[in-house]
């Protein structure tokens, strides 16, 4: 097992390369999800404000 992680002495180059690959792609994959949740939350807040204003307006 440790021979596998040593990569014939090249472990210091092989594993960082794989780490970069996975970290960058995972970050790329998760980023739009966060943006999407924020957008929807803002939209819901806007809708709530709108409906509150509509309920208030009939009563003078």
């Amino acid at each position, binding site marked *: 097992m440790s021979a*596998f992680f040593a*990569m*014939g*002495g*090249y472990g210091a*180059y*092989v594993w*960082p*390369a*794989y780490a*970069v*690959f996975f970290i*960058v*792609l995972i*970050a*790329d*994959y998760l*980023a*739009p*999800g966060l*943006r*999407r949740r924020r*957008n*929807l939350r803002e*939209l*819901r807040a806007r*809708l709530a404000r709108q409906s509150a204003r509509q309920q208030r307006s009939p009563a003078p």
Partner: protein
Amino acid sequence: MANWIPLWLHKLGSPPIFYRFAGTLRPWALALALLLGAAALYGGLVLAPADYQQGDAYRIIFIHVPSAWMSLFVYGVMAVASFIALVWRIKLAEVVAMESAPIGAAFTFITLVTGSLWGKPMWGTWWTWDARLTSELVLLFLYLGVIGLYHSFEDRRQGARAAAFLAIIGIINVPIVHFSVNWWNTLHQGSTVRILGPSKMSGDMLWPLLTMMAATKFYYIASLFGRVRTDLLAMESGKDWVRQIAEEEAKS
């Protein structure tokens, strides 16, 4: 007879329908990417024998080459989508082009970093001014320029159209850069580094590489669809279908 194909494509161009279509397809693409990626990693890191010249360091090839390939492929997709966006003014094509750019930039970045991590033990240097490496760096700048131009406009659609124009200029530029750097290398006879040795790849090294190429393709589809869905929601935030989605997600 085959009238349903253009009709179907036309329908797919409408944001709510594409939103649902991408939503159903995305988990499958991600699952395929993970499955193929896992198989490729097992084949590449465990099953494949060490290279007789490079030892185990060559195993970086299983992520380096697919990433390099994707960095060009994504640029191609972006340029085609840009062309469609400029000629037919289809909103979906604009979104696809602009959301491809960060994914392509990510793959280009991975290519550069893994390339220098591979180059250090093999050639003894992190970086060399070879035509391929330089073209890849220029490609990264092109991606960053497209992303930067897109975000510098206040109106997103206008920004998308300007950046699409830049993407098309860029795709003309890439071969010119490659050619000119090649010429430059022959002028300055510097350190001659051979990028790929003459050795042919054996089958048990080749199949993980090809599998990983397929896995990155499916990853691109999954990531792109996620980004496009997010963008469509933001762009159409005044419409009814987005309101419905917002309310549905509040309940769950």
